[in-house]
C-alpha cells in the first residue's frame, strides 16, 4: 500500500510541475506589468524599473520560473500586492471557508445523490426512478449562479428562512480557531452558534451541491444497474440474501468505485463553482479570494490561489485513487 501511494505520488510530480509552469506562464501572459501595479498610478518610470529589477522581472523567464519554483519548495507563495501579506499566511482562513462549504456541499451531494441513485436503480422504471432522473437532469442543467440567486431571492429575501450571505451571524461572532466554524463552535460548545453556521451553509451549500448531486445520482444509478446485473449479485441472491443487503452491501460497494471517480472529479467542479457561489453568497473563501485578486491584478495571489486550488483538486483525486485501493483488493499495491 505504501508503495502504491508512493508510486502515485511520484506520478504526480510531472503533473504538479506542469501545473506550476502553466500558472507561471498564464500570469506572465496577462497583460500589464506587476511592478507598475505594485507601485500604483503615480510611480515614476525609474521607480518601476528599479522594482522590476528587485523582483527579478528583468531575468529571462526560465530563471524567473526556477526562482519561483525554488520559492514554492520553501513554502513561499509570494506576497499579496494589495495587502502586502505573505499569501501562505493569508490564505488559510479563505481555504478553511471554502473547505467547509465544499465539504458540506459534497456531503449533501453524496448522501442524497448516492441514495437517490441506488433507489432508482433498485426500482428501475418506477415513478421514483423517473422523477429522480428527470430532476437529476434538470439539476445538471442548472446554471449555479442563477440557482444561487433564485435561492437567495426565494428562501432568504421572500421567505426569510436563511441568511442571504456570509458565514456567520456577525452579531454573535465566532472566535475562529481552526477556521472551520462547525468544528470551532462544537469544540467551544457553542451550539447556538453551530446552528447559525449551519443556517448560513444551507443556501450556498445547496447551490454548490446541486450539479454534483445530480451527476452522482445518475452515475450511481447506471453503475448500480450494471453491478446488479452481475453474476455475484445473482450469487448473493441465490444464497437467500435479502434484497436490501444485496443492494447496500454487495452491489453498493462495487458500484461505488466509478462513483468515487465522479466524486473526485466533482470536487473540481465544486472548487471551480466556488468562485461563483462565493461571489453570490459573499462567502469569504478561496474562490472569491482569487477572483478579487484577478480584478485587482494581485499576481502572487492569483498565481498561488490557482495553484492551491489545482493542488487540492489533484490531491483529492489522489485520495480517491487510494480509496480505490482500499475498497478494491484487486488493485495491486505491491
Amino acid at each position, binding site marked *: 500500500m505504501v*508503495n502504491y501511494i*508512493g*508510486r502515485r505520488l*511520484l506520478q504526480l510530480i510531472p503533473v504538479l510541475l506542469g501545473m506550476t509552469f502553466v500558472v507561471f506562464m498564464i500570469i506572465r501572459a496577462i497583460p500589464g506589468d506587476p511592478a507598475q501595479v505594485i507601485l500604483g498610478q503615480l510611480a515614476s518610470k525609474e521607480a518601476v524599473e528599479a522594482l522590476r529589477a528587485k523582483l527579478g522581472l528583468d531575468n529571462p523567464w526560465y530563471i524567473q520560473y526556477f526562482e519561483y519554483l525554488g520559492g514554492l519548495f520553501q513554502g513561499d507563495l509570494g506576497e499579496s500586492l494589495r495587502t502586502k501579506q505573505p499569501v501562505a499566511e493569508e490564505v488559510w482562513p479563505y481555504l478553511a471557508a471554502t473547505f467547509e462549504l465544499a465539504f458540506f456541499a459534497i456531503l449533501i451531494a453524496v448522501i442524497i445523490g448516492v441514495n437517490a441513485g441506488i433507489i432508482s436503480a433498485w426500482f428501475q422504471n418506477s415513478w421514483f426512478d423517473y422523477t429522480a432522473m428527470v430532476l437529476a437532469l434538470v439539476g445538471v442543467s442548472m446554471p449555479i449562479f442563477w440557482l444561487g440567486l433564485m435561492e437567495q431571492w426565494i428562501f432568504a429575501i421572500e421567505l426569510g428562512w436563511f441568511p442571504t450571505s456570509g458565514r456567520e451571524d456577525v452579531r454573535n461572532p465566532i472566535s475562529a480557531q481552526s477556521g472551520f466554524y462547525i468544528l470551532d463552535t462544537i469544540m467551544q460548545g457553542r451550539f447556538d452558534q453551530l446552528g447559525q453556521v449551519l443556517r448560513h451553509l444551507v443556501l450556498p451549500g445547496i447551490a454548490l451541491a446541486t450539479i454534483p448531486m445530480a451527476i452522482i445520482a445518475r452515475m450511481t444509478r447506471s453503475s448500480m444497474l450494471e453491478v446488479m446485473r452481475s453474476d455475484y449479485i445473482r450469487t448473493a441472491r441465490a444464497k437467500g440474501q435479502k434484497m436490501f443487503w444485496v443492494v447496500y452491501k454487495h452491489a453498493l460497494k462495487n458500484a461505488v468505485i466509478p462513483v468515487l471517480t465522479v466524486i473526485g472529479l466533482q470536487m473540481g467542479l465544486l472548487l471551480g463553482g466556488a468562485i461563483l457561489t462565493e461571489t453570490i453568497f459573499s462567502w469569504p473563501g478561496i474562490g472569491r479570494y482569487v477572483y478579487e485578486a484577478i480584478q485587482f491584478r494581485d499576481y502572487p495571489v492569483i498565481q498561488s490561489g490557482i495553484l492551491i486550488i489545482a493542488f487540492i483538486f489533484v490531491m483529492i483525486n489522489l485520495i480517491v485513487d487510494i480509496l480505490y485501493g482500499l475498497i478494491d483488493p484487486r488493485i495491486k499495491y*505491491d
Partner: protein
Amino acid sequence: MTEPLLKVEGLKKYFPVRNGLFGKTTGHVKAVDDVSFYVNEGETLGIVGESGCGKSTTGRMLMRLLEPTEGKVTFDGQELTTLSAQEMRKARREIQMVFQDPYASLNPRHTVEKILMEPLIVHNIGDTKSRKKMVKDFLEIVGLSSYHAKRYPHQFSGGQRQRIGIARALMTNPKLIIADEPVSALDVSIQAQVLNLMQKLQRELKLTYIFIAHDLGVVRHISDRVGVMYLGKMVELASSENLYAEPLHPYTKALLSAVPVPDPNFTREEILLEGDIPSPSNPPSGCTFHTRCPFAMEQCKQVVPQLEEVKPGHYVACHLYDADMIDKKIVEGS
C-alpha cells in the same frame, strides 16, 4: 522431402511485466518460450493446449502481428522475421487468419461487402467491379448468399459471422490460414458446419491450415498433425493418429484422459492432474510441467527437456524419453 511451407525455429515471446515505483520491467511473462515446428503444404497442423499456454501468441507471431522476442519464421522460403514492415504487409497476402470471436472480429460499422473488399483493396487486387463480383463469389463459397453483402455483421448469427471471417481470409487467395480457435465460440451444431466448410475449402483450394483449439476432439478431427502446448512450450508433436493413440508426454496423457466422451459406456483411464497451471510470469524451473507431473523426477526440476524425435515423426519434450532415461527405466523396471 520437400521443404515445409512454414518453418518455425526457437520462437519466443516474452511480455515485460512493469511494476515498481518507476514502472521498471520487473519480470517477463514467458508466453511463448522456444517453440519450433514446421507445417507442410496442404496439411493441417493442430495446436492444442489449455488456456494461456501461448497458442494465440504463437499464431500471431507467425504473421508478425506480434513481434517475436526471438526466433525465426520461414514461410515459403522467405524469412518473415527479417522483413520490413512494408514487405511484411505484402507477405500477409499469402498468410491469413481466422479469429476466435465471431462477434469482435468484424467491424460493426462496415457492411459485409466492405469487410470482404478490404483485403482486395489493400493488396490492389482487381477493380471495383471485379471486386464486387469476387465478394459475391466468396460469399457463396462459404455458404452464404450474395444478397448478404449489403448487411452488417450484427445481422448474422455466430456461425454465419465465422463464415464471413473465413471468406475474408480467403479473399487474397492465401496459401496458409492460421485459424485461432475458429469454432470455440460456436454451438455444437454450428461448429460442425464450420469444420466441414473448412475441410471442404482445404480440399478445393489447396490450403494449409494451422488450427488452434483447445477442444481435443475438434483438433483430432481436422488435423493431420497435432502439437500440444503447455506453458509456452511445445511438449509433444506428432501425427494425430499417433498422438491420440499413443500419447507419450504425461501431460498429453492427462489431457486426453480428462476429455469427457459422449458415450456413457466408455470408461477411460483416469489421470487426474493435481492443482492449476502455474503462471507464465513465474514458470517452474526445469520442465514446466514437473509441479503437476505424476512421474516427476529430480532431474525434471532442473533441466529443461528438449523436443526430441523419439519415434519417427513423433516429437516429445520429456526427460522420461531421454535416451539414457529409457535405459535407466529398463534397468529400474527390471
